[in-house]
């Protein structure tokens, strides 16, 4: 007698399989949007705070493009590292039902997660390799021996 699966019937055959390019691209787009929205909210919040502190001398704070991009990439790096090392999934992965796992399908350790996040942020085009690779692995996955699998379960399977 098998355990009761919380996964819808349609998705059950794909669970545990390597995720492909389309799903991963959508997940990454969701992540990028999430970080952008959070950073934008922070920017607006900081400006609102400055306005409340000193309304007379208030000027809307702006940052250079280089600084903005650097902050955004750093935020992505931290966000991905924390998410992958704790739950194995970012918000985008959660939406698309993906999970990043280690070589044996286990948890990704924080140093690996950090390097993977750095590679993803610094060399995002490496993701496209998973569309060509027979094992559906991106350049980051090949280098770090990680995998991205379909996993629609809310929690990681206990091993």
């Amino acid at each position, binding site marked *: 007698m098998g355990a009761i699966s919380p996964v*819808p019937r349609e998705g059950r055959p*794909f669970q545990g399989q390597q995720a*492909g390019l389309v799903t991963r691209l959508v997940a990454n787009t969701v992540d990028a949007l999430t970080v952008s929205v959070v950073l934008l909210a922070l920017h607006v919040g900081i400006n609102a705070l400055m306005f409340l502190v000193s309304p007379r001398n208030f000027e809307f704070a702006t940052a250079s493009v280089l600084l903005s991009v650097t902050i955004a990439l750093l935020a992505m790096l931290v966000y991905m590292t924390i998410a992958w090392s704790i739950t194995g999934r970012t918000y985008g992965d959660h939406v698309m039902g993906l999970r990043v796992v280690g070589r044996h399908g286990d948890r990704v350790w924080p140093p690996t997660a950090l390097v993977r996040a750095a590679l993803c942020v610094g060399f995002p085009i490496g993701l496209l390799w998973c569309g060509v690779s027979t094992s559906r692995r991106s350049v980051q996955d090949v280098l770090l021996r990680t995998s991205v699998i379909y996993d629609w379960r809310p929690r990681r399977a206990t091993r």
Partner: protein
Amino acid sequence: MGRRYGVATRPQLELGLTMDIALGILVQARERAAFIGGPLQLVARPAARIVLRPPLVPRRLQLGTWLRRAADRGSTYRGKKRNELDAVLDRLLPALLTEMMRHVDVAELLQENVDVVALAEEVIAEIDLPEIIRDSTGAMASDTLLGVRMHSISGDDAIARAVDRLRLRLTRGTVEPGAAAPVPVPGETVVVVSPGSDPPPRTR
């Protein structure tokens, strides 16, 4: 789970056969009775009417009236006794069952004789509980998400198939130069251009 549902056992088959035979005999007897009884009814019905309602006898003294009264009395008595029996059973059965339950541990009995967990899992699996939960909690969001995920999985597979086809084509081209025959895919038109042949007509 070694249980099999819906499969008749040998005693059940024998019982069914016996019932079929009995039913067949009854139907045949009814047909015979109807065959014989038809003409008899023509005679018996007027005779019974004369016996029950004889002419020139006051209605209250007729046998039919007497039988009707007896039937009414019997019916009233039967209703009254049934009510009394119901009242007695209403009082007696709960007390009896309570007394029985005091001596029998039903939970233990069930645990000993029924695999409750397996049964529950079977029932939950059969009714697809996750589906019901999804239906009851945010069905719209869940359905949308399911659709997006399934579409992207289809996209993943489509890309993988396309890359596989391309790889196969390239491999064949490497192994057998000049003899590459593209694998026709259902629903896809393949135009083969061999060296030296005329270019395909351009359609606009």
